[in-house]
């Protein structure tokens, strides 16, 4: 066996993940100090990677003066998350929201404006007004790419980071990556690392059975969560899954945030509304699931009552942005929004703070619990942060990392750790036969559906843990016949790590919370006496999962007890029952 081909790089700021928050972190670090060596590492190609590969149809959480205040926003998201939030990072996001919109505007990202040139903000949330449409939002990645080039940021495409390097004193030291086309290694020594690897979106199996037919960009498989875990970082509230209402089978958004302001709404099979608000939350998903399971299912998105011109406008947005192939999907089935309601379903489970609340624990400076390691976007713990949150928190991470660089020296790479990691990575290439990444992934994700998807049942989750342990033994038989298959073989190891974390975190919190996201049959009530707290999961010195409770910091924006229940009352009471 020849020694693996290994290149080395040095960076002041290493950003891992070139989707949304990553490019912004790199841009802001470089803008903060143009002398810094900023490297952006991407598993795919920065031009078209991540959740906004094809752009985005709107901002779901714009805090714009005249429509909303940062305090109102913090309050709304606190209530939507049953009170379990760190308000300081939420407030940091909300305070940065408007500046980031103007910054993006200056870079030529197009937002909808009214005749007077003001942002045309719409209401979708239960309480406040935060949605800013982007009918021409298909060009966001191009704008980001132009700025990366302008600032001459070092972009390294088609390298998958596999593990983070840490120093003896527990500080971040860099990362190891492997080329997805050649299996060459890259060891990057770095003073700081920003993780922006997106959601763990390949955790549950979509109802279609197609492994890559996920809600999230299927490249986002939880690499970041797994790397953070193995580096010793804490992950927060992983039992608060992401589960979204999506177009059945297509498994993409319909999207209620686009159609809602035009008059579209979620309906049951009788065409009746059953929820007051289409903004995605655990409580909304619980009502959605109940309706699916009742005689009133399936659930639909109804636009049939809208004027043809309005529907034309909706189609233009939905079929050119974010997931443009949905028009093609509808056409093949003969679904015309004018005549037929769109059948909806619930997605597979995942970890994604973009829409939910779980992820690598960060404070208001985007710092994880590992010194020098930052995280932002869908994989960090700031709830409901969506695309704009990835930008704002990515910017915070980049600026903080730039600052931290001045305080530390470039760590040496730990040669033994690099060699051990190369052995782990290359093991599947050294076998002639065995188990393919495809079948190991399929089985893991099928078991996630069978045993971990809510309603959560203790006995089932324990069985899941037994099955996952068996699969962990099977990893020793993984075989990869080319570098592409090796990438998949590494990804399935991240997926299994996330599956284990989902089971362990769900078992730890012995109550129900966040509506459907953590609905435990054995503990159906919310227990504020014992569980009004975050849960943190991390790896102990012996490599085992460790859980601890972490108190919710005192609120910086007070929330009235009467307001706290607003999201618990989403179900519409039928007229006859109300009479």
């Amino acid at each position, binding site marked *: 066996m020849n020694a693996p081909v290994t290149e080395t790089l040095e960076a002041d700021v290493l950003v891992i993940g070139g989707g949304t928050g990553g490019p912004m972190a790199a841009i802001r670090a470089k803008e903060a100090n143009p002398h810094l060596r900023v490297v952006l590492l991407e598993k795919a190609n920065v031009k078209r990677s991540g959740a906004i*590969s094809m752009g985005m149809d709107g901002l779901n959480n714009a805090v714009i003066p005249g429509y909303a205040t940062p305090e109102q926003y913090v309050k709304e998201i606190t209530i939507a998350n049953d009170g379990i939030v760190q308000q300081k990072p939420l407030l940091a996001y909300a305070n940065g929201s408007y500046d980031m919109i103007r910054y993006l505007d200056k870079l030529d990202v197009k937002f909808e404006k009214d005749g007077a040139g003001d942002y045309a903000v719409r209401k979708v949330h239960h309480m406040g007004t935060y949605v800013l449409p982007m009918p021409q939002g298909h060009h966001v990645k191009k704008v980001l790419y132009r700025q990366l080039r302008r600032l001459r940021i070092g972009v390294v495409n088609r390298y998958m980071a596999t593990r983070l390097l840490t120093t003896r004193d527990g500080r971040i030291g860099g990362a190891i990556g492997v080329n997805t086309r050649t299996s060459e290694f890259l060891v990057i020594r770095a003073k700081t690392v920003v993780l922006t690897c997106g959601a763990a979106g390949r955790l549950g199996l979509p109802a*279609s059975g197609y492994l*890559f037919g996920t809600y999230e*960009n*299927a*490249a986002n498989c939880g690499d970041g969560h797994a790397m953070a875990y193995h580096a010793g970082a804490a992950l927060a509230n992983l039992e608060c899954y992401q589960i979204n209402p999506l177009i059945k089978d*297509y498994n993409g958004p319909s999207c209620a945030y686009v159609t809602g302001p035009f008059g579209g709404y979620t309906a049951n099979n009788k065409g009746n509304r059953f929820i007051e608000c289409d903004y995605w939350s655990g409580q909304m998903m619980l009502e959605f699931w109940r309706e699916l399971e009742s005689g009133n299912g399936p659930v639909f998105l109804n636009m049939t009552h809208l004027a043809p011109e309005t529907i034309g406008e909706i189609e233009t947005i939905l079929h050119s942005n974010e997931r443009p192939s949905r028009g*093609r999907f509808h056409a*093949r089935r003969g679904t015309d929004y004018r005549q037929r309601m769109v059948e909806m379903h619930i997605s597979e489970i995942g970890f994604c703070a973009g829409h939910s609340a779980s992820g690598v624990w960060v404070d208001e400076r985007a710092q994880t619990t590992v010194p020098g390691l930052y995280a932002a976007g869908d994989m960090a713990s700031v709830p409901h942060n969506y695309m704009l949150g990835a930008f704002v928190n990515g910017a915070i991470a980049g600026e903080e990392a730039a600052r931290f660089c001045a305080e530390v020296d470039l760590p040496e790479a730990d040669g033994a750790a690099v060699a051990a990691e190369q052995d782990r990575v290359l093991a599947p290439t050294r076998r002639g036969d065995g188990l393919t990444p495809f079948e190991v992934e399929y089985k893991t994700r099928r078991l996630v559906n069978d045993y971990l998807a809510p309603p959560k049942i203790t006995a089932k989750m324990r069985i899941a843990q037994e099955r996952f342990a068996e699969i962990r033994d099977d990893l020793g038989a993984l075989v990869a016949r080319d570098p592409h298959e090796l990438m998949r073989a590494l990804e399935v190891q991240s997926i299994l790590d996330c599956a284990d974390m989902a089971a362990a975190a769900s078992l730890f919190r012995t109550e129900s919370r966040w509506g459907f996201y953590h609905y435990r049959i054995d503990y159906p009530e919310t227990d504020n006496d014992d569980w009004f707290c975050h849960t943190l999961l991390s790896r102990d010195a012996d490599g085992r999962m460790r859980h601890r409770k972490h108190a919710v910091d005192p609120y910086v924006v007070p929330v009235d007890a009467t307001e706290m229940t607003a999201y618990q009352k989403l179900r519409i009471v039928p007229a006859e029952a109300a009479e």
Partner: protein
Amino acid sequence: MPLAAHAASVPVVVDDAKCIAAKGCTVCVDVCPLDVLAIDLVRGSAFMKYDECWYCMPCEVDCPTGAVTVNIPYLLR
């Protein structure tokens, strides 16, 4: 365990008559987030090598000659 060769229909279709991979173009291969496209050096055109598609469409939209069509994968069509 020995391995079997699986056959699967793939959602991305490339029109060989329009594809200019023979002239060195690799745009669709470059932009795919899942890295599932490749160039067939003998035919001189791009093709979908792995059935791992997110039907996201950069390959089709960025193709300079309109040679690429993204269909919805059969399992969820």
